[in-house]
C-alpha cells in the first residue's frame, strides 16, 4: 500500500529524512519511534502529501506521489480522502465554531446527501463517545475531548490509512488506555494505522511492528515491537532512553511509572 524507496528530504538545507526505505501493507499497524527531531513527523507529512521527497520515490497504492502530482487539486484531494492525518496538536486541527460542523466539514464536501452526512457524523460522535459535546465549541473543550473531536473529524472521511502524530501526548492515563483500545479496534476493522509515539508502555499494544528512527534521520531498526523494546542497547544508541531504562515488554507485570519522560 505504501512504498517508500531511498527517500530523502531537507528543510532549506537541514536534513530531516535520510535515505528512508519502508513498505507498509494494507491493514497493518505500524509504530514510528525515535528521539525528538529524528524525522518522524516529517515522514508523516510526506506520507500525507504535505511535502514531497527531494530524492527517492514515494508510492501510494502503486501511484507515485510527486510534487507535480500534488499540484493537481483533484489528485491531491483524492489522496487526502484516502489518508487521514491526526495532528499532534489538536488545537491546530479544529477550525469550526461547533463540534457537529467540525466533523461534518469533510463529508459535506464529498457530495453526499445531508442526511447521510448526519448519519456519518452521529456514528462518529458515538464511536468516540462525544455525543454530549455535539453543539459545544471545539475551542473550549479539554485536551482529551479535542483529540477525540479531531480523530472523529478525520475518521468521518472513511480513510484507508489513518496517520496519527503522537496521539497519546497530553492525555490522562484513562483516556490513553481508551484510545489504545479504540485504535486497535479500528485496525481490526481493516484500517491501516501509522502511529508515531513516545509511549514505550503502550506501543506493544498498538502494533506488532515498530520502526525506529536514528538521530541521523535514517531508519535504525524495523522489527517486531517486543524485540525492539528488549534491545536496550539499540534504544540507548538512538538516544531514546537513558541508562535507567529497563525493558519489561512481554513480561506479565504492570507499571504505573513512565520511562519515556
Amino acid at each position, binding site marked *: 500500500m505504501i512504498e517508500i524507496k531511498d527517500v530523502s*528530504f531537507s528543510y532549506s538545507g537541514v536534513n530531516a529524512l535520510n535515505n528512508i526505505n519502508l513498505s507498509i501493507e494494507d491493514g497493518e499497524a505500524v509504530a514510528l519511534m525515535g528521539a525528538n527531531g529524528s524525522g518522524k513527523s516529517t515522514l508523516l507529512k510526506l506520507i500525507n502529501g504535505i511535502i*514531497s521527497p*527531494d530524492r527517492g520515490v514515494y508510492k501510494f497504492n502503486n501511484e507515485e506521489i510527486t510534487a507535480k502530482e500534488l499540484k493537481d487539486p483533484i489528485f491531491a484531494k483524492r489522496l487526502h480522502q484516502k489518508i487521514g492525518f491526526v495532528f499532534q496538536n489538536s488545537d491546530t486541527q479544529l477550525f469550526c465554531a461547533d463540534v457537529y460542523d467540525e466533523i461534518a466539514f469533510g463529508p459535506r464536501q464529498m457530495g453526499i446527501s445531508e442526511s447521510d452526512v448526519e448519519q456519518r457524523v452521529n456514528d462518529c460522535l458515538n464511536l468516540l463517545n462525544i455525543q454530549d459535546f455535539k453543539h459545544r*465549541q471545539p475551542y473550549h473543550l479539554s485536551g482529551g475531548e479535542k483529540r477525540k473531536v479531531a480523530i472523529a473529524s478525520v475518521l468521518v472521511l472513511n480513510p484507508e490509512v489513518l496517520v496519527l502524530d503522537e496521539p497519546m501526548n497530553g492525555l490522562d492515563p484513562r483516556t490513553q488506555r481508551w484510545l489504545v483500545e479504540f485504535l486497535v479496534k479500528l485496525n481490526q476493522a481493516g484500517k491501516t494505522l501509522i502511529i508515531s509515539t513516545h509511549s514505550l508502555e503502550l506501543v506493544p499494544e498498538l502494533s506488532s511492528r515498530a520502526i525506529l528512527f536514528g538521530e541521523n534521520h535514517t531508519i535504525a531498526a524495523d522489527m517486531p515491537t517486543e524485540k525492539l523494546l528488549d534491545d536496550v542497547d539499540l534504544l540507548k544508541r538512538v538516544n531514546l532512553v537513558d541508562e535507567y531504562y529497563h525493558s519489561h515488554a512481554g513480561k506479565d507485570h504492570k507499571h504505573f511509572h513512565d520511562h519515556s519522560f
Partner: protein
Amino acid sequence: MHIPDNYLSPQTCAVMGAAMIPVWAVAVKKIKAEVPKEMIPLLGIGAAVSFLLMMFNVPLPGGTTGHAVGGTLLAILLGPWAACISVTVALLIQALMFGDGGILSFGANCFNMAFVLPFVGYYIYKFIKDSVKTDKGEYIGMIAGSYIGINVAAFCAAIEFGIQPLLFKSATGQPLYCPYPLSVTIPAMTIPHLLVAGVVEVLFTVAVFSFVKKVSPGTIYEGAKEKTKAIYGLIIGLICLTPLGLLAAGTAWGEWGTDEIQDVVSGGSALGFVPAGMQNGFSFEALMPDYSVSGLPEAAGYILSAIAGAAILIILFKVIGYLKKDKGESALE
C-alpha cells in the same frame, strides 16, 4: 497599499511622519491608561496577529484571491488605539525586515493604514452600531466601517501620490517622484479599492469577527460594548486628516510658484504637464536625455561600467550554479 520609497518626496515623508508622532504618543498614553500592565504583551502579540492577518489570501467570488489589511477588524477587536500601534509595529517589521513598504515612506504608510484606516473604520462601525442597536446593526456597521475605512485610506494614499508632481520638480520641470497628478492617482487608487480590496476587507472582517464573537466574546475590546459618542470620534478622525491639507499648503517645502498654483486652480485638466513628449514623438533617445550632463569623465564612466560588468558576471555565475542545484528541490516547500 504599501507605498515604497521614491514614490513620495522625502519632504512629504517627513510631514507624514511628523503627523504620526502625536498619534503614537496619544495611543501609548490611552493604552497605558486602559491596560497598564498587560500593555507590552498585548501590543507585541497584537502586532504579530496584525502582521499574520495580512498574510491570508482571502477567496473572492470567481476564484481569485486578495489580501486584507484587517485594520478595522483589529480596531473592533483590540480597540482603535491598540490597533494603531499594532499595525504600526507590523508595518515597521515589514519595511525593515521584509523590505515591503519604504523606510522613508513608513510615516505615510502608518498614516494611511495604522491611523486613518482603523479610526475611520472603527468610528463608523461604532456610530452605526450605537444608533441601530441590533445584531444586524453591528454587522452593518462592520461592513460599512471596513469598506469605507480601507477606501478612505486608499484615497489618502492617492492624494499623497497626486500632490508630488505639483510640489516637486527638477529645474527642467521634470517630476522627481510620483509623476502622476491627482486626476490620475485618485481613480488609479480608489477604483481597485472600491471594487476589490474593499470587498476583501469586508469579507475578512465579518468572517473573523463573527467567529470570535461566537467562540470567545470575552476577548473583544470592551469599549466597543459601551456606548460612547462615536460621532465625536469620527469628527476627531476627520480633523486628524488635516495633515493632508497641511501638505497641500506646505508649499515652502517645494519649489512651487504662484503661477503654477493658479494653473492648477483654473486649468482643470492642465495639472502641470503638457504632453510634449507625445508631440515630439517617442524615441529611445528621449528616454536618455541628459544623463551625460553631470560632468562624469568618460574614463570614470568606463571604470564604473567595468566594475558593474564584473559584478554582474559573478552574480550570474552564482545564480546559475544555485538554480542548477535547486532544481531537484520539492516544489511545495
